[in-house]
């Protein structure tokens, strides 16, 4: 396996993009969740800090950092500390096997130009944003009527953005100085996926099953009966629904004939032509034998990420806050982050398996940088839509009963997924699809 500097730089770039994007999901989703719930319940929601309360999440993050990091007496200290990390790591790593754009050909020796263009754009955007925030903070604080926290958050965010911009410029200059990016051997294909494994989807399930441990450890190490109940409920629920989830995904794999998620997406780039008139994109949702799998997968994804209507792990009416009752400060924030990141990963998986991944319907993306940008944008739009569905469902459907959830998992969704799998297998064997 030969690889050179370009490969390493490209891999690091991909990892930086993916992890950076995922870490941004949490603050944005917290804002969307609060404003979305306000919208649905006919309230206003957070609107004090920043325009439309956009900076509220940063203020929350600041508050998390400033809170006391408390470990209850009688807790198993070591496990109590590593449990939140165990929760976050699987959520962050799963995205590695999901493709997020159309591969494109990097022309010869133009990599540096691309990197510097992107870098300068990013730096300018950061500087502008930071300056804007700082300026509006000055305006607001000179007029009075803003709370101290508001002003402090404004200054901090502005300074952080400006510093970020300066850091990007500095690193660009540094890269130019050591000539690290002007490396030979363009003319290679840029695959927008961190690790294109031939066991991609199985790895997703392996990592998803590791996510249980963070919750179980948190519940047990807290030495609190509510935490323990939350942890046990969460793990029972995740194990039960993982089966339905995997079986629903297997039918998508059968259609693609590969465990590689890039193959799954490429398979969906074609069209279903109905009666020679309607051209539907060949996404798995539109396939006559696959939509049951889609429904099962989405429901199981809700259960797998412990979201309402299946959030028994932290059912606040019954268990205080479930497995993270005893957690405070940044440790609690880590659980929060892993919940939202798991949601984003699940949305990305739903999009990849059933909604055509980065495919833009009725449009043939050119294999260039432009096409890559368009397809990546399409992917982000689809994932955003799925995330919004998560929020939408949470504030629309009430919580089920726990025994109903388990019964539904084993007696409805698992058999449904199995029957659908058999139908898909038959359809493929007969050559219908």
């Amino acid at each position, binding site marked *: 396996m030969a690889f050179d500097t370009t490969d390493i730089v490209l891999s690091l770039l991909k990892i930086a993009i993916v992890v950076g994007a995922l870490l941004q999901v949490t603050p944005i989703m917290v804002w969307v969740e609060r404003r979305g719930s306000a919208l649905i319940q006919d309230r206003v929601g957070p609107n004090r800090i920043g325009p439309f309360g956009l900076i509220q999440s940063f203020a929350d993050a600041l508050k998390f950092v400033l809170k006391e990091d408390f470990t209850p007496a009688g807790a198993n200290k070591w*496990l109590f500390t590593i449990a939140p990390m165990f929760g976050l790591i699987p959520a962050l790593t799963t995205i590695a096997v999901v493709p997020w754009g159309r591969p494109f050909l990097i022309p010869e020796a133009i990599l540096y130009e691309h990197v510097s263009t992107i870098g300068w754009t990013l730096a300018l955007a950061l500087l502008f944003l930071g300056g804007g925030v700082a300026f509006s903070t000055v305006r607001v604080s000179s007029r009075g009527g803003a709370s101290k926290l508001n002003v402090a958050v404004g200054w901090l965010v502005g300074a952080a953005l400006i510093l970020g911009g300066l850091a990007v410029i500095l690193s660009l200059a540094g890269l130019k100085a050591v000539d690290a990016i002007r490396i030979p051997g363009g003319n290679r294909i840029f695959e927008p996926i961190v690790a294109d494994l*031939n066991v991609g989807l199985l790895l997703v399930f*392996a990592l998803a099953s590791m996510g249980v*441990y963070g919750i179980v450890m948190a519940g047990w190490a807290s030495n609190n009966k509510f935490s323990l109940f939350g942890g046990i409920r969460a793990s029972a629920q995740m194990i039960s629904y993982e089966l339905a989830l995997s079986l629903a995904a297997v039918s998508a794999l059968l259609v693609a004939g590969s465990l590689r998620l890039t193959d799954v997406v490429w398979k969906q780039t074609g069209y279903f032509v109905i009666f020679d008139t309607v051209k539907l994109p060949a996404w798995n949702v539109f396939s006559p034998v696959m939509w049951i799998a889609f429904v099962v997968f989405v429901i199981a994804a809700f259960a797998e990420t412990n979201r309402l209507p299946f959030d028994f792990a932290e059912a606040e009416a019954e268990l205080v806050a479930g497995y993270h009752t005893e957690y405070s400060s940044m440790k609690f924030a880590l659980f929060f982050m892993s919940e939202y990141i798991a949601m984003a990963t699940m949305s990305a998986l739903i999009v990849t398996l059933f909604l055509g991944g980065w495919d833009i319907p009725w449009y043939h993306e050119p294999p260039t940088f432009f096409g890559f940008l368009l397809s990546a944008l399409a992917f982000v739009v689809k994932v955003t839509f799925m995330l919004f569905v998560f929020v939408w469902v949470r504030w629309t459907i009430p919580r089920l009963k726990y025994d109903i959830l388990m019964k539904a998992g084993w007696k409805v969704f698992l058999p449904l997924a199995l029957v659908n799998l058999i139908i898909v297998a038959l359809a493929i064997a007969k050559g219908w699809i």
Partner: protein
Amino acid sequence: MLEFIVFFVFAAIAVIFALAVILHRNPVVGALSLVASFFALAVMYVLLEAPFLAVLQIIVYAGAIMVLFLFVIMLLNLQHAREENTRPIQQFLGYTGSAAFGLGLVYYIAKYAALQLPNGPFNADARAVGVELFQAYIFPFEMVSILLLAAIVGALLLSGRLPSKVRAADGEGAR
């Protein structure tokens, strides 16, 4: 070179956590250590060019079997149970005997099983394993599925709350 670093790091992890399993008094810590050890073994499988089985190892062992262990430990609240030491003679014989056994095993492997490196990469992806499984091994495969069914029924019978009708019909056998 990189491969050897990975090998030794994860071999050390596997061995240290395996030792924690048998030496630590708290079964919850033991179970979690075993998970770490299995994870390191999955890395070994990747080094052995069997990524499919590596992922299966994580799904089946780390993801399913060990969660079951943890569940039972938590359900029975075993973390506070005092486990008394075995008899001194048993301890002594156990440790020395297994150490001798292990040393002998390592010695003979190092002496006789130092094989030539295989030539060429080994293509063992999911497709190859699947084709072999469903052609040459279809009968054992079906047998294993029956065995799993029997295990489900057995586990339910041993631990589950059966309906009272079944219990009455079971008569003497019921607890």
